[in-house]
C-alpha cells in the first residue's frame, strides 16, 4: 500500500473506489431508483440474458444512471427471451421482450433517460398470487 500524501489524493482514491460500492449504495435507496430486472431463468440465460445484464450494468455505471440491475426468475415470456422488467419510480413496471445488448442500451437511453416509449413492450395484464392475498 502506498501512503496517501494529501487530501486531494484521498479524494481521488475515493472516486476510484466508490465504483465498486455503488451497487450497495444504490440498494440503500431502492424506491428512488430505476429498477431493472433481468429474467435469468434457464431459458433467459440460454438466449443471452447474461450478455444483456452485463451491458446494462456497464452502461449504468458509465453514465452514472440512478438505476439498479437485479436478476429475477422466469417471467413466463419464454417466446420473447431475454426479457427485462423496468420500473421507473412512480410508474408501473414495463416488460421488454427480445432484448439484446444493443436494445438494452437503447432502452436505457430512450425509455429510462428520456422517458420515450419504445416498441417491444409486452403487455402485463395478469395478477400474481401474492397480489391477490
Amino acid at each position, binding site marked *: 500500500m502506498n501512503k496517501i*500524501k494529501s487530501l486531494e489524493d484521498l479524494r481521488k482514491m475515493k472516486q476510484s*473506489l466508490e465504483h465498486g460500492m455503488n451497487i450497495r449504495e444504490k440498494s440503500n435507496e431502492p424506491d428512488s431508483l430505476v429498477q431493472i430486472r433481468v429474467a435469468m431463468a434457464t431459458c433467459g440465460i440460454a438466449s443471452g440474458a447474461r450478455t444483456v445484464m452485463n451491458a446494462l450494468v456497464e452502461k449504468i455505471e458509465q453514465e452514472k444512471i440512478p438505476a439498479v440491475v*437485479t436478476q429475477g426468475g422466469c417471467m413466463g415470456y419464454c417466446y420473447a427471451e431475454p426479457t427485462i422488467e423496468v420500473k421507473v419510480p412512480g410508474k408501473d413496471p414495463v416488460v421488454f421482450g427480445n432484448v439484446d445488448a444493443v436494445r438494452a442500451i437503447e432502452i436505457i437511453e430512450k425509455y429510462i433517460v428520456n422517458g420515450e416509449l419504445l416498441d417491444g413492450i409486452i403487455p402485463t395484464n395478469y395478477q400474481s398470487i401474492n397480489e391477490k392475498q
Partner: protein
Amino acid sequence: MAQYKMHLLVCGGTGCRASQSEQIVENLKSEIKNLGLENDAQVVTTGCFGFCEKGPIVKIIPDNTFYTQVKPEDCAEIVTEHVLKGRKVNRLLYEDPETLKHIEDSKHMGFYQKQLRIALRNCGFIDPENIDEYIARDGYAAIGKIITEMTPEAAIDIMKKSGLRGRGGGGFPTGLKWEIASKNKADQKYVVCNADEGDPGAFMDRSILEGDPHSVIEAMAICGYCIGATKGIVYIRAEYPLAIKRLKVAARQARAYGLLGEKILGTDFDFDIELRYGAGAFVCGEETALIHSMEGHRGEPTVKPPFPAEKGYLGKPTNVNNVETFANVPAIFLKGAEWFASIGTEKSKGTKVFALAGKINNVGLIEVPMGITLREVIFEIGGGIKDGKKFKAVQTGGPSGGCLTEKHLDTPIDFDNLIAAGSMMGSGGMIVMDEDDCMVSVAKFYLEFTVEESCGKCAPCRIGNKRLHEILEKICGGKGVEEDIEYLKNLSRVIKDTSLCGLGQTSPNPVLSTIEHFYDEYLAHVKERICPAGSCKALKLYTIISDKCTGCTACVRACPVDAITGEKRQPHVIDADKCIRCGACYDKCKFTAIHVQ
C-alpha cells in the same frame, strides 16, 4: 474495485460467527466458484446487521433480499437459485410475526423501517477489514478536511453546534468536553476511547468496533487534532477478541495509508493509537477507574474533580469518549452540525443505539432517532412481546437504570425524559418484561449484578448494595415485612446520595423505580405473602384439591420432604410449613389435583 453485479453480505459479527457464519462465507464462495460466477458475485464479510434474533444473516445486494437463520448447508441453494437463477429462497426469508408473511427485503421489515443509522451506518454494509470500502464511503474525508482546512477551535465549534452528547451513559456534551481538554495546557495529552462496554446485554460498542472500526479511529484522530493530542488509546475489554482483531487490522491499514502516524495527509498533524485490554470489570467503564486500570492500578474510581480533562492518564489532560460517541463524529463533519442537530429532541440530538432484549420478538441492535417513543421501539421495531403476552415494564439504562411502565410508553426517549421518569439512557440497554416477571425479583437480579461489580472502594456501594440485595432476597423468600420497603427506600436514597462514582449513584435505581411503579407487588410479597407474577418460588402455595384427589399416593412418593400425608384412597393434604415448593407433586399428579397459587 472490481465490478460485481451481485454482493452477498454475510454478517461477521460475534453473534452470527457463533452460528457458523464463517463457514457460510466459505460455502458461498466455493459454490459461486463452482458455478463460475466469481466475476459476477462477491461475498463480503460485514459487521453486525443488528437483527441478531434471526442470525446468521445473509443479505443479497442489489435487491436487499434478507435471509435469516442461514445454515452452511443452505448456501448451495442460495447460489444456484438466487445468484444464478434470480429466484429467492422463500424459506429463508424473514417471516413477519403478525401477518406470517415472508418479507423479501430488509426495507420492508418493521425492524428496520423506523431505524436511522448514523453510528451504525457502515455496520452490515462494508467489509470492516477492508479500508478501501471505508474510504469509498467518504472514510477519512472528515479528518482530511479538518486538518487541512480547519482550526481546532472551528472544529470544536462544529461539535458543540451538533449537540452530540456522550453515549456511554453520562450524556455530557461532547463538544464541551473537547473544549475543556483543549484549553488545558500540557506537553502531552491523550484521547481515550472507552470500549469497556459492561452493561449486560448491551453490545453496541462491540458491534461498531467489529463492523466499522475505521470510523472510531478517524474520530479519535479528529479529537486528537481538536484537543492537541498525538496519542490515542483504546481501552477495550479482552473478552472482545474479534473487535480487538478488527481494530488492529484497521489501525495497520490506516498506518499503511499514512492516515495514522506522522504527518497525516502531508500536514503537520501526528496521531496514532494503541490498545489496552481491560479484564472486564464493569466499574472500569467509569472514566477515572478506566484511567487507573490503564495505568496498571486497581480499577477503581477517584473523586472528581479533578476531571480527566484536567488530570487524566499519567496525570495529563485526557479526553475519554465512548465508542458510539466517536462513531457519530465523522458523520457530523461530513454532513454538518445542522444536519445532526435537526435529528432528535431539543436537548438530545441525533440517534441512539439500543440493545433490545428480554421478552420481545425482535431481539437485536437498533439505532433510532432521539425522541422516538418506547412504544415504537418495543412494538414496531421490536415486534411486540413474545408469545402474545402482556407488556409489563421495560428496563432502560443497563443494570443501574430504572423500570418504566405502560404509562411511559409514549414518552419520547431522550436523556432528560428518561431521568425524569426515574431511569436513564445509560449505554442503551433495553430489557423488556412481560406479565410473568416479578418486579421484586427483577430488582434483586440487577442488584446481584451491581453487588458483584462494585469495586469495593466506598462503603455505601460496597456494603449498601449487598444489604439491599439481602433485603430483596428476604422479601422474595417470603420473609419480608412492611418496614423492609421503607428501609429499602431510605437505604437506596443514601447509597445514591453518598456513593463515590456513577455505579453506586445509580445502582439502587431498579429498587426505587420498581417500588414506585409496582408498590402493590411489593406489598403483596410482604403482607399477603404472594408473588402476583407467580415467579417467587418461596411464595408459591401448593394445595391438594380434595375433590380431585384419588388418594393414589403418587405425590407422597414424589415429595422429597414428606410434606404430604393422607390415607390410601382418601384425599391427601400438603403441610405448607414442610413444603419446599419444589413442584414434584404437581408434576406427578395424574388428576390435576395439585393447585398452585
